[in-house]
């Protein structure tokens, strides 16, 4: 793409690009994941690649890292045509990849993880000694401090990510690809990561940042390429674009990034939680005395880094795990263990639950859409034909109605759940739960792996349910989502609520501090 060179303000005669892809295409069966992709990344820049889920970003990067072979097209590294048939070739070509899900051996030390696959000989002693030296140098050069002898499983997620970056640098990568690197990080850790990336750039490394978060693109990149449905729709300078323009390029139409909602009108208390404790199967205390209230007509958002007890809170309230303490719904005590504490009873009591992990708890992927819509409500009298049989025709008709109302594509109830895209799967789950008209909706990570268009729709449904006078407990690791949807925000850290904040008067910085376990007292503010 000659135009790319121009828009990026580079001359064809200047130093060659770090990476240049020409006409890359890749199909998986009938699905064209990448169509004639052209992209040129200048050396020493941070280049963002943004697109919705399924736009083909990950496929493109997997081709670059030798995981898949492109059906056609060429890869140039520093101006030289470089075929990349496998990961080994990618590593040799100076490409390092930091995957969204880290590829680390949990019970190996940092050092062992770093030398794995890049050993200097058949014996480990020399390799480990050299790695220890190099690691010290890298730590000084880029501010990437990690204790080489710690087991990876004892490291925080942010530090594990550093190990992944160090792995790439140890292999002398000049081009570093990061796939959705901030999904698991606190805002502070994310800021630290971006500082590291800027440092790498200053040392002449090229960084490719794949993300669906517009804010990160605007904050960290020099140039940005936008992908939509397998094609590269634009490459622009970050300084010359705006989040609105990028969102429009991603989706192909204008999108509302801000959720439109009126101030909440809270009514009576719907859910009251007092001193809730949960222990996991290893006896570790995951919830350490949670107390909160949610009123009719308000959305309580729970912010926090994944794994700080939010999932356990949802599981306890949704009847997926035993707990101790006290919860009341509309003034009635609900059992927390034993009879009547299961998900079925909770639904009968008026608590609907959109679980965080739709593939494991929200849907059975091999079942059809209408069967999935029955789950949890299969005893509902309206779905019964007789004492023995369910009224499947009614269910199918009901499902089709819901699918149409929620714009699930395609609206075919007999299609298996696995055949829908992430966004459409989530709409099926949301439709099932919201349309039961619950008093309380528990909703976890409502837009994880969901494209922007569907995000907009799901957010609207949540606000509409609130405006209908229902109580909503929203758990999300996306701080933007919490900030824009919630009427009140509770921040969780290590199984406790660190503080309640008003989204109008707080900011990401303050929430980030609470998410990292520092409460207001440490910073001199009132808690």
């Amino acid at each position: 793409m000659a135009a790319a060179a121009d828009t990026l303000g580079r001359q064809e005669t200047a130093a060659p690009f770090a990476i240049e892809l020409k006409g890359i295409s890749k199909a998986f069966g009938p699905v064209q994941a990448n169509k004639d992709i052209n992209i040129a990344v200048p050396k020493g820049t941070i280049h963002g690649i943004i697109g919705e889920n399924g736009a083909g970003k990950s496929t493109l990067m997997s081709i670059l890292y030798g995981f898949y072979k492109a059906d056609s097209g060429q890869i140039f590294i520093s101006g030289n045509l470089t075929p990349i048939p496998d990961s080994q070739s990618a590593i040799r070509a100076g490409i390092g990849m930091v995957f969204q899900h880290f590829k680390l051996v949990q019970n190996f030390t940092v050092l062992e993880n770093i030398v794995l696959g890049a050993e200097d000989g058949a014996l480990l002693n020399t390799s480990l000694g050299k790695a220890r030296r190099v690691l010290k140098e890298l730590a000084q050069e880029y501010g990437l401090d990690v204790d080489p002898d710690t087991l990876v499983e004892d490291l925080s997620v942010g530090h594990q990510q550093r190990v992944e970056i160090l792995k790439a640098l140890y292999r002398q990568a000049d081009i570093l690809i990061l796939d959705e690197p901030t999904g698991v990080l606190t805002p502070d850790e994310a800021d630290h990561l971006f500082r590291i990336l800027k440092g790498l750039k200053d040392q002449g490394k090229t960084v490719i940042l794949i993300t669906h978060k517009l804010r990160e693109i605007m904050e960290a990149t020099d140039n940005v390429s936008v992908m939509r449905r397998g094609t590269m729709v634009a490459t622009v300078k970050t300084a010359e674009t705006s989040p609105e323009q990028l969102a429009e390029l991603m989706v192909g139409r204008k999108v509302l990034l801000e959720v439109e909602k009126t101030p909440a009108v809270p009514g009576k208390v719907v859910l009251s939680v007092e001193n809730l404790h949960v222990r996991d199967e290893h006896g570790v205390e995951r919830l350490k005395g949670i107390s909160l209230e949610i009123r009719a007509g308000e959305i309580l958002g729970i912010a926090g880094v994944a794994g700080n007890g939010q999932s356990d809170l949802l599981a306890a309230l949704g009847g997926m795990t035993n707990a101790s303490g006290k919860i009341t719904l509309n003034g009635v005590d609900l059992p927390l263990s034993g009879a009547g504490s299961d998900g079925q009873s909770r639904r009968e009591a008026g608590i609907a639950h959109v679980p965080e992990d739709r593939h494991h708890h929200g849907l059975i992927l091999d079942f059809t859409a209408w069967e999935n819509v029955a789950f949890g409500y299969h005893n509902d009298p309206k779905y019964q034909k007789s004492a023995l049989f369910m009224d499947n025709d009614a269910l199918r008709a009901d499902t089709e109605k819901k699918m149409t109302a929620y714009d699930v594509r395609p609206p075919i109830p007999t299609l298996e759940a696995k055949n829908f895209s992430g966004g459409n799967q989530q709409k099926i789950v949301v439709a099932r739960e919201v349309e039961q008209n619950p008093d309380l909706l528990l909703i976890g990570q409502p837009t994880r792996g969901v494209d922007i268009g569907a995000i907009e729709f799901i957010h609207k449904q949540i606000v509409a349910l609130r405006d209908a006078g229902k109580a909503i407990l929203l758990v999300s690791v996306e701080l933007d989502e919490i900030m824009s949807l919630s009427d009140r925000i509770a921040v969780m850290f290590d199984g406790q609520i660190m503080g309640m904040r008003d989204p109008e008067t707080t900011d990401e910085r303050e929430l980030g501090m609470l998410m990292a376990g520092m409460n207001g007292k440490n910073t001199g503010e009132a808690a």
Partner: protein
Amino acid sequence: MDYATLLQVLDTTIRLATPLLLACLAGLYSERAGIFDIGLEGKMLAAAMSAGAVAALTGSAWAGLLAGIGASLLFAALHGIAAITFRGNQLISGVALNFLASGLTVLIAQALFRQGGRTPPLSGNARFNPVTLPGAEALREVPLIGPLYYEVISGHSVLVYMAFLIVPLTWWVLFRTRFGLRLRAVGENPAAVDTAGVSVVGLRFAAVAITGVLCGVAGAYMATALQAGFGREMTAGRGYIALAALIFAKWRPVAAMWACLLFGFFQALALRPDVVQAVVQVRVPVPVLDALPYILTVLVLAGFVGKAIPPRAGGQPYVKER
């Protein structure tokens, strides 16, 4: 029990622990690489028959050993193809191979020798005979240590010494070499190995091949050293006992040796009901003694040994993520 009797029991312990140890180390390589192998039993059985047959035909124990290793490798290759190449269920593949070995060994032995599924009795160079270690005779009269060295340590076949030398060797390979690092990694998180540019399939096949070789030695030892020829089902569940020992040892080589010695000790006791009676002052029925190693196996497998964390990717075929 006097000292001499104790030494006799310990001597038997070592002889009986040897096939367990070889099979246990075999399983260790495979499982550390993430391939569960319930087919240790079948591989030992196939190796025992092949070793017994070839030793009988050629008169050479070494030729028998090679044949045993070859047969076991063939079974290991089948397991590898099923479990690694075709990503099949590793337990089912292992069980199937055990059945195959159980029937096929008797069939072939019967077809070759027409002795009711046994191979002919071996003698002379067709067996691995005891080796007297240097100085054993000279030290024999030294109190305590002398008889221990002469009775227990010395006087085993070369395969026994080989088995016990493989223990430190395995430790060294696993924890001090590049191959060991990669082998352990592929059993914990094959994706980490794959993205590091190392072949998951290659590593796993290498591990399965080592398992084949060690099971081959174990089987050959059964037929050409411990006993003089192959007999129907002669491994008698040793493959499963070795697996229990492996779990007992939490997949660590030195601990595996102690676990196998313990199981071997129980097997040795079963051969000496008189000694047991003398020690516990109660006549323990022989079938109960015979059952002891198996009872211990069940207890170990039922989790009475505390938490044993198997390699995390164990039993799962590796599929590249999209």
